[in-house]
């Protein structure tokens, strides 16, 4: 089993992180949209935001690990893309990191603006960076907008991957699923 990435494709670590994070990000977005409309007497009124925040913190940790892993690994080639596609793909791939980082940090700043920590599944707490009166409003507005931007970029990314797979008969989607063919 190939763990690290090679010129020919993505290793197991990158593929696991890609798909687990993709699922978690989309699920957390849906959970976020749903939870803000809950009735006060819903049994999920507290549980849903707790889950949203816990998964969000885990995603933030995963994002840092994934970025470090990306830098520590060779980047699989994208020779089968046209120059325009290649530029677009790289902008989107690298763009995800700052977008997701800002999205997650802004979410963290909402809940910690009053000095309270974020509890992650009851396992550990992420402390507040310090009480910052009123920061929850700006952080909240940024968090909401960025969540739509991230999902929109993810939709473009998925559509491009599908187009490349189905129409161009390229290999990028299958190698993100099953790894480098050479192994």
């Amino acid at each position, binding site marked *: 089993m190939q763990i690290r990435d090679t010129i020919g494709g993505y290793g197991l670590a990158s593929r696991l992180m890609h798909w687990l994070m993709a699922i978690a990000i989309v699920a957390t977005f849906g959970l976020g949209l749903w939870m803000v409309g809950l*009735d*006060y*007497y819903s049994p999920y009124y507290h549980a849903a*935001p707790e889950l949203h925040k816990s998964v969000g913190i885990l995603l933030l940790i995963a994002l840092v690990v994934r970025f470090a892993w990306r830098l520590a690994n060779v980047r699989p080639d994208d020779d089968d893309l046209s120059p325009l596609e290649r530029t677009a793909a790289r902008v989107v791939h690298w763009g995800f990191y700052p977008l997701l980082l800002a999205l997650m940090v802004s979410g963290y700043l*909402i*809940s*910690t*603006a*009053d000095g*309270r920590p974020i509890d992650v599944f009851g396992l550990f707490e992420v402390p507040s960076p310090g009480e910052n009166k*009123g*920061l*929850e*409003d700006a952080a*909240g507005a940024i968090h909401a907008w960025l969540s739509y931007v991230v999902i929109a970029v993810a939709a473009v990314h998925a559509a491009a991957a599908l187009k490349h797979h189905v129409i161009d008969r390229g290999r990028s989607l299958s190698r993100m699923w099953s790894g480098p063919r050479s192994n």
Partner: protein
Amino acid sequence: MQLRLASVAMLAALAWPAAAPAADYTIDSKGAHASINFRVKHLGFSWLTGRFDTFTGTFSYDAKAPEAAKVSVEIDTASVSSNHAERDKHLRDADFLDVAKFPKATFVSKKVEPAGDGKAKVTGDLTLRGVTKEIVLDAEYIGGGADPWGGNRVGFAGTASLPLADFGITFNLGPASKEVELTLNVEGVENK
């Protein structure tokens, strides 16, 4: 004889120092000797309290004619605080105060009916969330006179109970939480 009259006047002045003449006052929000607090029952189990940190106001008051008093207060609704960032963010959004649309709440008195013993009913218009409704504040004179820094001050407390739905706040907080109690503590500094 004239000397004696003057002494009587001086004595009188000493005897009733609190009977300040009619004057205009500015609520001391600068020095924060004033607060606007509210409380709502939580599930019917306890009181949830909060306050508005930013507001300004003025009043006029004559101890000899309290019925002529007038008061007006303007509240910055975004300054709501209940000591919990996530809840305060929710209180500011459209479910509650909708501060983006309605950044100000105001109270302007129309009538003051003294009820004796330093108490009065203050009727006025409260504008909250774009809705203007007449409310009655139960007001009480707390104290007044010269302060130690060369000015004159007088202070009051007022309370009112309001149905949230009257002001378009219909988010379901439960059957025990349909009313909010407002408490205003104001100390005015006499305008010079």
